[in-house]
Each structure stands twice: as C-alpha cells, then as structure tokens.
C-alpha cells in the first residue's frame, strides 16, 4: 500500500504532511506525559522487530501464497497507539530511504494511510473497547482481525482518494476503489490472523507485555460487554462507511473540476510563459536571429525538437561530467 512520490502532487503531499505531523505532535506529547524512558529503546527495538518479522513468509493454508504481519496493529498492542504511531513513522521512513518502498514526498500520505489508521483507529477505537472487560484469546483474535481488516480498508480508500485528488490517474473512482478494496480485504484478513496468532502467543507467555493489560483486568465491572462492543463497532463502521460513501459520491465532480484546471487555461498560460522565455533566450543566443522555426508550434515539431534537444543536453552534460572525472583522476595521479 506504499504510495510512490509520483502518485501525489505537492498540494496533496503537503496536506497529508500537515495531518500526519499533527498526529505525530499529539503522540509525542502523550508519550512524554507517560514519562517512561524505557519505552524509547523498546520502540526502537520493536520497530526493528516489526521490520524483520514482516520479511518472514507465513504460509496461508489452502493457497500457494504467503502473508505477513500487520505492523501497526502489533506495535499498538505492544506499545500503545501513541508510541506505536511514532515507531511506525520511523519504519516508514527507513522503508522509503533504504528500500525505496514509498517516497519521501508521499511519506505524509503513507504515515496517514498505514500508521494513523493502524495505530489510532486500530488501537483506540477497536483494540481498547474490545479489551475493556479483560483480555481473552478470543477477544485478542477478534480485535486483531477486525482492526487489520478495517484499518487496511480505510488505508486503501485513502490511497484512492489521495491519488485521484492529485489528478494523476484517469482511472474512474469506482474502478479504482473496486480494485483496491477487495485486494486489501484479503490482505487484511490474512494479516489479522497472523497478528492474532502472535499476540495470543504473547498473551499466554507474558500477558503483562500487552498494552492495556493491567488496565483491562482492573476494569472488569460496569463496562460494556463483548457483544455490546461488537454492536457499537458495527454501528460505528456502518456510520463511517455511510459518511465515506457520501464523500465518494461527491468526489467525481471535484475531480472533473480539477481536471479542467490541469488541462485548461492555467496549464496553457504556463506553457505560453515558458514558450516566451524560450523565444527570448533563443533570440539572444542564436547565430541568425531573424529566422523562423522549422517546426513552428505544432505538437510534432515541439516534441521532436524537445527530444532532440533533450538527447543533446544529456549527452553534453554526461560528456562534461565524464570529462571532469577524467581530469580529476589524471590530477590525482
């Protein structure tokens, strides 16, 4: 689900950076308030663990394929949503820089799509209500699967919105959503099952390590039952889905509007300005100033000259760089 830089325009990237920064700021404040210095190395080591564990292949029964852990949910269940969110930011930045998975400009989008939903929606709205009356293996399994499926669906939906809002693709909204959501539904189910298996193991071996474990056991009375929580979650999900679908149905108009803007006057004005600038530079640099362009303004002429010029400039640039390198080596001798 990692978005590449090319899928977002600077305006969308900046908006998502602002949103993710706000969530990060809130998380930092919360982690500082917890005042647990031991948590910092735990965040680092857990981040590295999630990174490494995501590379282990878990065979999916009945199919020939394999699945991976859900990092956001696992980190939240171990460290809490705030520390988990900060750890996810570190993981996403390293994935982007070291393994080229995602992009620097799209980092804000990726943080929002994977870390925000995974940690805050998964942790605060799903995991926490599930565990309020105490932890059991069944609850851990149900919470893990529900959190992974719902947060992945939300993340995939956000990817669709961010890409379409950037005006990058001609894919109609319905087709894009139709491709993204089912794929991530299957991924979410598998990731949820694997994450649940790991968390159940931790619950059996060292239950005190899980987030909210002490709080959950101490608040057994006067809270929502498991069934009530499920009902509330279902209603909340239906509400969110309704709101999102309303938002989705309104989106194509906005897209048409932005498409017109991209291909319309503003673009032409920019091209005109560049064209004028090109003319000015040419008249200043050409050997025969009073000439006429061989290709005038036709698309073919512009393209051919652009391509020719491109090859020429690249060749000149490369030759210059290699020349510089050659002289540098000669000098070093």
């Amino acid at each position: 689900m990692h978005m590449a830089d090319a899928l977002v325009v600077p305006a969308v990237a900046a908006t998502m950076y602002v949103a993710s920064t706000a969530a990060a700021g809130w998380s930092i404040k919360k982690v500082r308030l917890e005042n647990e210095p031991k948590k910092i190395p735990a965040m680092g080591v857990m981040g590295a663990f999630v990174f490494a564990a995501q590379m282990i292949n878990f065979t999916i029964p009945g199919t020939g394929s394999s699945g991976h852990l859900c990092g956001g949910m696992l980190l939240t269940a171990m460290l809490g949503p705030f520390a988990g969110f900060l750890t996810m930011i570190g993981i996403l930045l390293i994935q982007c820089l070291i393994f080229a998975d995602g992009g620097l400009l799209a980092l804000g989008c990726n943080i929002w799509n994977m870390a925000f939903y995974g940690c805050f929606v998964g942790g605060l709205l799903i995991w926490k209500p599930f565990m309020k009356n105490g932890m059991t293996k069944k609850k851990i399994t149900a919470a893990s699967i529900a959190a992974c499926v719902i947060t992945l669906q939300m993340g995939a939906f956000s990817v669709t919105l961010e890409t379409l809002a950037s005006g990058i693709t001609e894919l109609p909204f319905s087709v894009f959503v139709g491709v993204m959501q089912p794929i991530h539904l299957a991924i979410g189910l598998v990731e949820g099952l694997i994450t649940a298996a790991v968390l159940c193991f931790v619950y059996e071996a060292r239950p005190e390590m899980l987030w909210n474990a002490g709080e959950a056991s101490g608040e057994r009375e006067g809270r929502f039952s498991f069934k009530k929580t499920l009902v509330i979650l279902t209603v909340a999900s239906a509400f969110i889905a309704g709101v999102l679908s309303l938002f989705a149905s309104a989106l194509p108009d906005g897209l048409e509007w932005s498409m017109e803007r991209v291909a319309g006057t503003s673009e032409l004005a920019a091209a005109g300005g560049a064209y004028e600038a090109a003319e000015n530079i040419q008249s200043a640099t050409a050997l025969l100033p009073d000439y006429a362009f061989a290709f005038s303004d036709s698309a073919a002429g512009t393209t051919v000259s652009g391509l020719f010029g491109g090859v020429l400039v690249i060749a000149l640039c490369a030759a210059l760089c290699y020349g510089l390198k050659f002289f540098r080596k000669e000098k070093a001798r």
Partner: protein
Amino acid sequence: MAGLGKAIHEIHSLENLAERDTFFCRLHPLAKVLVTIGYLVLVMSFGKYDLIGLSGMCLYPLILMILGDISIRQAFRRLRPVLLMVCLVGAANPLFDRTPWMTAGGVVITTGMLSMAALFLKTGFAVFASYILIATTTMEQICYALRKIHVPQILVTVLLLIYRYLVLMMKEADRITQAYLLRAPGEKGIRKSAWGSVAGQMLLRSMDRAQRVYESMTLRGFRGEFFPGGKFVPVWQSVLYGIFWGGFLAVIRVVPVFRIAGRIFML
C-alpha cells in the same frame, strides 16, 4: 530466506556507499536533504502532460550519479518496489484518456500515453533522488539533519534505534526461519500452527533485548541525543551546493531547456 539476506546486503552496501571519502558524501547532510526535497517538489509540480519540460529534471540525477560514482543500474533496480502501484495507476491512462495529441509515423499518440509516460518518469526521478541521498548520506547524518530542522528528539532517536537494530533483527529472523525450514523440508514458509510461536518467541526476545539496550545506554550516559561522527566539508561549500542546485533546478523548472536546445540546433 533470500529476502532477508538480500535486505541485509542492501543495507550494508548502502552504508559502504555513504561512508566513502568523496565530496558529495562529506557535504553537510542538511544541504543534501533540502536539495532532495526541493527537487522532489519541483518534479511533482510539473503538469501531467508536460513530458518534455519534466525530462529536463533528469539532469540532477544524471550529474550527481556520474560525479558521485553512483551506479545507475542499482538505481533502476530500486524502482521495483513501487512499480506495481504506479503501473496500476499509470497503465489506465491510455485506456481512459484517448484524446489524440500527435501522430508519429502513422501511430496516434494520445494524451493518455503522454500522462502515463510522465508518471513513469516522475517515479524514476523520485526514486533516483532518494537513492542519491541515501548513497551519499548515512542514516546517522540524516538524523542529524532532521534534528537541525527541529524534528523532535524522540522521533529521531527512535528512527536511529530502528536502523541500528534492523540488521540484528533481520539476522535473527533469518536464523529462526532457517532453523525452522531445516526442520520442515519442502515447506515454503511458516505453517499456520507455528505462526504464533515463531514470531512470538522472536518478539519476546526483542522486548528483553530492548530492556538490556536501555540499561546499557543509560550506563554509557545516554541522555537522548546522538551526535554524528565523521568530517564535513566547510559550511560555505555546502551552502554553495544548496544555492547552486536551488538555482539550477528553478531555471529548469521555468525554462524548457530541452526544447530551446532542440530548436537552436535543429535550425
């Protein structure tokens, strides 16, 4: 696990690249980070049909890869992780946007094809720019640059710790899976009954390790701040580097260099 082995090799080779004693590696990391971000913003700001204008931006990776002795082949290999999503998004453009733009040798080129090509070009430039940054700057230096622009200390510390323990964890995951697969010949991955115990054991050990890490860091006087080692070139050279690229990229963004060069030489 081939994936884990490859990832460990990738990290080591990037570290070796970034630790070389070259001018680009010794530049102040903040200058390189800012230039990279500026470059990415400019590349992504091009219109989706402005293929020729966009292609002018290839000069930045081209020049830095040649002068910085960075493998262009490796840079292309790094495109793989993002290609799937970009192909899904980009390949639809020629199907849905069929407005004719020009005809070349009897073949109609549509604006959809143009926007698809621009998307692939943008992807390539972004991946190359990130590769240039990480191939000339160590993670410690990037963290140092992040602190300079006031990214909170806690975030930078976590980032650095994840990076430091990454190889260690990967090696541990590799050992665990190797041991499992040696005892379960013919299996491609971890079977369902062992999902929890394999990763769970590793997780518990990781938490114990985190405790030991914290204690040893405290004993060595860690107070939450890292200081990068290594020598940088004089500050004015880094400033000049930033100004040069800032100006150069701005000119390329505004002036269609390739078009002008083509027209001049095709007269």
